[in-house]
């Protein structure tokens, strides 16, 4: 029985939260990696673009709530996401036309594009703060828990409860659907294949008659979908605050590079690598060992490898180690 308790404990505090957090990171990381692979620059506006999309989701959610539309037990935000995506794609295409296009046509070095993306970052940040303000916002409604800790205990008769938030389940399911559709699109459709060809070798792709304008546009559309959904899921699970979104850019970058930048599948797994290592290394295992070990060997300390303050530092250290030993990422991305 103790063993089952220990498993449930790990599921409750490590596995489920890490899976949800990892999915949110994975969506952002695929966004970064697509922009890097096809448009060829490190997009420092990632976090703020996600917050921009989320902002529209929130505004539409509030509007729906005010006119009394709801989605039953599911959060209303899910209904608002498509509208948010439309605005987000519009914004991204406008930004591309006004800003990025010029440098792409002039074939500027990637560093210059990265600098330009910092300008976009500042502007997006300003727009988000001017429209919705810098404060913390919650826009979750509907049923909060799928399984409550207390109910689980009653049901199974175990000491440890397992609480699963509905947002966590929604996050994981939506991510899986979205990512499998994306991989199907990239691997099976003609447009997807031409995108990969363009990412692999631009000149060769142009020679074989692939239209770069179309590729770029589709990339931004996909990026807009990923950014909005990723941002909205994060906001639903935790809360929406422009500053946190800006900070989330850092683990997202780490995930994209760990997985091998330019490689969407690597980015997807990279998100989970980062999330799991963050939580595994900062979790206090005391209770777990109390269940597993006999009473005489019970530990006195917290058995925590690192204090939770170093959550972010963990993912960055992993990144540094990967950069040192396997600079192209775990799953062979672009060679540096």
């Amino acid at each position, binding site marked *: 029985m103790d063993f089952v308790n220990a498993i449930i404990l790990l599921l409750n505090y490590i596995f489920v939260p890490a899976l949800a957090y990892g999915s949110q990171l994975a969506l952002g990381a695929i966004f970064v990696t697509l922009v890097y692979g096809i448009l060829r620059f490190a997009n420092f506006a990632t976090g703020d673009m996600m917050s921009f999309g989320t902002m529209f989701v929130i505004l539409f959610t509030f509007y729906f709530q005010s006119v009394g539309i709801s989605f039953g037990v599911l959060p209303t935000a899910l209904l608002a996401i498509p509208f948010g995506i439309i605005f987000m794609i519009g914004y991204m295409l406008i930004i591309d036309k006004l*800003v990025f296009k010029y440098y792409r046509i002039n074939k500027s070095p990637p560093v210059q594009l990265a600098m330009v993306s910092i300008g976009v970052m*500042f502007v997006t940040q300003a727009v988000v703060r001017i429209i919705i303000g810098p404060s913390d916002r919650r826009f979750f409604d509907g049923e909060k828990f799928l399984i409550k800790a207390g109910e689980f205990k009653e049901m199974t008769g175990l000491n440890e409860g397992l609480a699963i938030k509905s947002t966590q389940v929604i996050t994981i399911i939506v991510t899986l659907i979205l990512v499998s559709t994306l991989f199907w699109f990239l691997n099976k459709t003609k447009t997807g294949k031409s995108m990969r060809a363009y990412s692999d070798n631009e000149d060769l792709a142009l020679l074989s008659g692939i239209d770069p304008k179309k590729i770029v546009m589709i990339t931004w559309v996909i990026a807009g979908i990923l950014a909005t959904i990723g941002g909205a899921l994060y906001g639903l699970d935790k809360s929406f605050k422009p500053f946190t979104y800006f900070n989330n850019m850092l683990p997202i970058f780490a995930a994209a590079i760990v997985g091998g930048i330019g490689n969407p599948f690597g980015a997807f797994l990279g998100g989970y690598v980062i999330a799991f290592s963050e939580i595994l290394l900062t979790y206090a295992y005391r209770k777990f060992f109390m269940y597993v070990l006999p009473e005489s060997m019970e530990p006195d300390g917290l058995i925590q490898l690192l204090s939770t303050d170093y959550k972010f530092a963990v993912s960055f250290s992993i990144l540094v180690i990967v950069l040192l030993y396997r600079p192209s990422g775990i799953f062979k991305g672009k060679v540096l």
Partner: protein
Amino acid sequence: MRKNLNVIAAYSIMMGLIILVGIFQSWNIALSIFNLCLISAVMTMGANIQWGYAGLINFGIMGFTALGGLAAVLISVDPVQEAWSAGGFNILFSLFLIIAMVLAVRYILKNYKKSKNRTYIIAAIIILGIVIIRFISEPGIEAIEGVNPAKTGFLGGLGLPIIFSWVVGAFFAGGLAFVIGKVALGLRADYLAIATLLISEIVIAIIKHEDWLTRGVKNVIGLKRPAPYEVNLQQTDWFISLVEKFNLSKLNLITDLTERQATLNQLVIEGSSVFVKLCYSGLFLVVVIILLILTQKALYSPWGRMMRAIRDNEEAANAMGKNVVKQHLLIFVLGSAIVGIAGAMLVTQDGLFTPGSYRPLRYTFLIWVMVIIGGSGNNFGAILGGFVVWFLWIEAAPIGLYLVNLTTAGLDDTHFLKVHLIESVPYFRFLMMGVGLLVIMRYRPKGILPEKIEIK
């Protein structure tokens, strides 16, 4: 003279703007803007010699600034004797172990060929070392943090004048840059940017959470100043007579004696804070001028020529027998050390160290905006960038408010749009920076004062 006309013009306009702030807002505000402009200028000079001279992207400016600030704390705060006796031994022993660990790893790396076994042994040493160090340092840290936690709870510093920290801060930042450079300089430009950004976040995380060293988010306040204190100044005779002399014409208009005294007191209070700020301005100006002379000399020296050659064509420079890796490392260390000086200066001016306030937007990206807008590769441009951008960063709110009032003049004062816009005036600075950066990058990609290399 002629060819420097644009430099002179740009700087006079900038000075004129600051003086206008002094006349229309107050001299106090003008001087605090000026001081922070000078500090920003030091930071941009550091970033500029990395980016402008050598083409290295360093997005870790925040980390180096914070290390400079840490140096200010460790130099100027008085040592906490109790804490040292409580846990000093454990900390020193852990430090010794860390050094031993690094040396052991180095020894293995040098003397054994690359193999799987070597990697495992190194990993084992590091993991074992961390476990042992945690065992030894834990009680020490707990003891130190237990000593009077409301006031100290950390080891304190050396109790030296804070000015020394400017040099020490440079060494701290340079040391960190050496380690980062060894690890990350082989990466391609944008990877280097991301890696340095993340490493600087790690530095901040350590500074924030190692309370025994830095007091963490509890902040260190009341650092010793290199300049006199306002309260003391207000009671010194020579200062009062100085203020009296300056404002004689104004004071002579007042005939009533008590009223005259009250006015004088008011003037002395205002004057004292202006005087203190002027002291800082003087100190900072000295640093900026020394650094400017050195960087200018370096730029036109054979070494500067070599750096530009490496920047413009790495392979060609390598083929000419220049050691690119070594020079990159050198310039990375030098630039970061300058940023470290700026970090120490910043904490010196504020008189407090708040690890929570180090955020990448303010200390990394804003500095980059300064370098790009001012003109990379040109020291005068970088300094000007520091001035212009910081000035706008501070004055953006008043300008934004003015613009909002202008555009919404037709609306009622309680109209929701107007109220909302006025509330969001502080965020116009982000908009201004972003648009400024985009416009400069598009239409004047070399900055306001572009790099000009003449062969002498």
